[in-house]
């Protein structure tokens, strides 16, 4: 009795195993493709991940709507900037406020010809140090998509500085980083190793002061200058 039963069970087990192998052979390649596809979707680029983390907080409906002055290229003279008044709900917190106006600046005016910053540029982070030095960290697109030239690059920096000056009085100086790094130039011309003067009383808007401590103006342009809140920049005396 046990002999024929054992033989029948063995047969069934073998048939079952064979069927499992066939199903696995069919299903495994499909599964592998699905895993690969899912992995691609689940692995955003470093910059995408950073963008998600650093997106500005959603606008607070309680923020008062104010008239913000944005500096884009003048419609009458393409070599200069002109203020354009835009109604924006701006936070009273200077950092949030700065993020809101810079994101509006990046979004550009209705006439795209008058924009100063590349459309695909993103503000990744913004810090405001106690001495009034702001650190604005933009995505790589700000440098790579910027039209090369002294005039276009200077207008870009001026538009950031003057927009901050007009809307965020706490900002006195500005350091621009690209993807967390200090670049030599924006797109081959304008010097990003320096700190730009934003203060109203500054003699030159968008210009630099070279009278900087060594930590702020590193001698090697290749040295990255990350700017954590409360880092070395905050310790430097104001000018």
């Amino acid at each position, binding site marked *: 009795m046990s002999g024929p039963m054992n033989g029948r069970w063995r047969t069934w087990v073998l048939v079952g195993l064979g069927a499992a192998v066939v199903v696995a052979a069919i299903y495994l390649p499909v599964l592998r493709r699905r895993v690969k596809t899912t992995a691609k979707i689940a692995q955003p680029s470093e910059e995408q991940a950073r963008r998600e983390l650093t997106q500005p907080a959603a606008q607070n409906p309680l923020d008062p709507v104010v008239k913000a002055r944005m500096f884009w290229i003048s419609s009458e003279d*393409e*070599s200069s900037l002109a203020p354009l008044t835009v109604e924006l709900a701006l936070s009273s917190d200077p950092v949030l406020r700065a993020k809101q106006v810079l994101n509006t600046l990046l979004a550009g005016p209705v006439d795209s010809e008058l924009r100063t910053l590349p459309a695909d540029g993103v503000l990744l982070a913004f810090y405001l140090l106690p001495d009034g030095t702001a650190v604005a960290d933009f995505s790589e697109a700000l440098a790579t998509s910027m*039209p*090369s*030239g*002294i*005039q*276009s690059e*200077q207008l870009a*920096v001026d538009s950031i500085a003057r927009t901050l000056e007009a809307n965020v009085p706490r900002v006195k100086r500005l350091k621009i980083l690209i993807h967390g790094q200090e670049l*030599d*130039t924006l797109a*081959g*011309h*304008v*010097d990003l*190793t*320096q700190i*730009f*003067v934003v203060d109203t009383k*500054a*003699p*030159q808007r*968008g*210009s*630099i*002061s*070279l*009278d900087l401590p060594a930590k702020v*103006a590193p*001698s090697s*342009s290749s040295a990255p200058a990350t700017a954590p809140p409360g880092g070395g920049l905050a310790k430097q005396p104001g000018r």
Partner: protein
Amino acid sequence: MAVWGAPLGRRFGILPIVRISDGHFFSRVTPLSTAIALLVWAGSFSSGAKSQQPPPPAAQSPGAPISTPPYPTIAPPQPQRTGLNVVVLDPAHGGTDPGARGAQGIRESDLVLDLTFQVRRALEAQGYQVLQTRTGNENPSFDDRSALANAQRGAVFVTLHISSTGLPGTARVYTMPDSAAGVPTGRVLSWDRAQAPYVALSRKFGDAVQGLLAQRFKGSPNNAQSAVIRQLRTTGAPAIAVEICSVSVQDRVDLDRMMPGVADAIARGVASFRPSYVLPGEAGSQP
């Protein structure tokens, strides 16, 4: 006689190996060889101390050809005028960096090189010595370009650019802003701030060239503009950037037509600036 291993000898306190000029060595330690080795070694200290200094000038009469056969004879240097003598021209970009790019394959790096040769001819016709930071499709670093000017005495620096944007047919001169000005506190000038003592002179030079460009190219400003330009910051000489607008023209010919006028304006601007040129630190210097 030459001393081999003198640096090692100094470092580790061992005697150097002494070689006579005919190729023989002191291979055996004898009282005489030891004495000679000691004398030579002691001499190497003084020669080593002097090795950091440039060699003394050869005792030659001024203006005489520098010639030591069988080496080729080098022509005597021309007597230099005081003040501004050298113009360093910097065609921007180059190599893997084409700069601004426009329609029909217009590349800033190629155009500025052509412009540089035209400016060079105009300046040499006036008797200036002209140096170029590049003569072909290379891309020297910002510091290398500045270094060429910083090594000269009585030089001005002109970096040449063509923009991506702006009103076509115009030309602008840029200098570092006044906030970049400064007076060196000691005798050593920081490389990173090399332009600081020259900002006022650069502005004067820039205004001279911009005024001439404005006469030729309508729509150009009358005075030089301020811009924070990386190339100018490390240049220890009156330095300007000239930018022509722009690569957005439909045809390169439009830019080619501008070049002789730009070259002439720069050359005339250098000439008109020359009387104002006083090196910082010299009597009557402005900065």
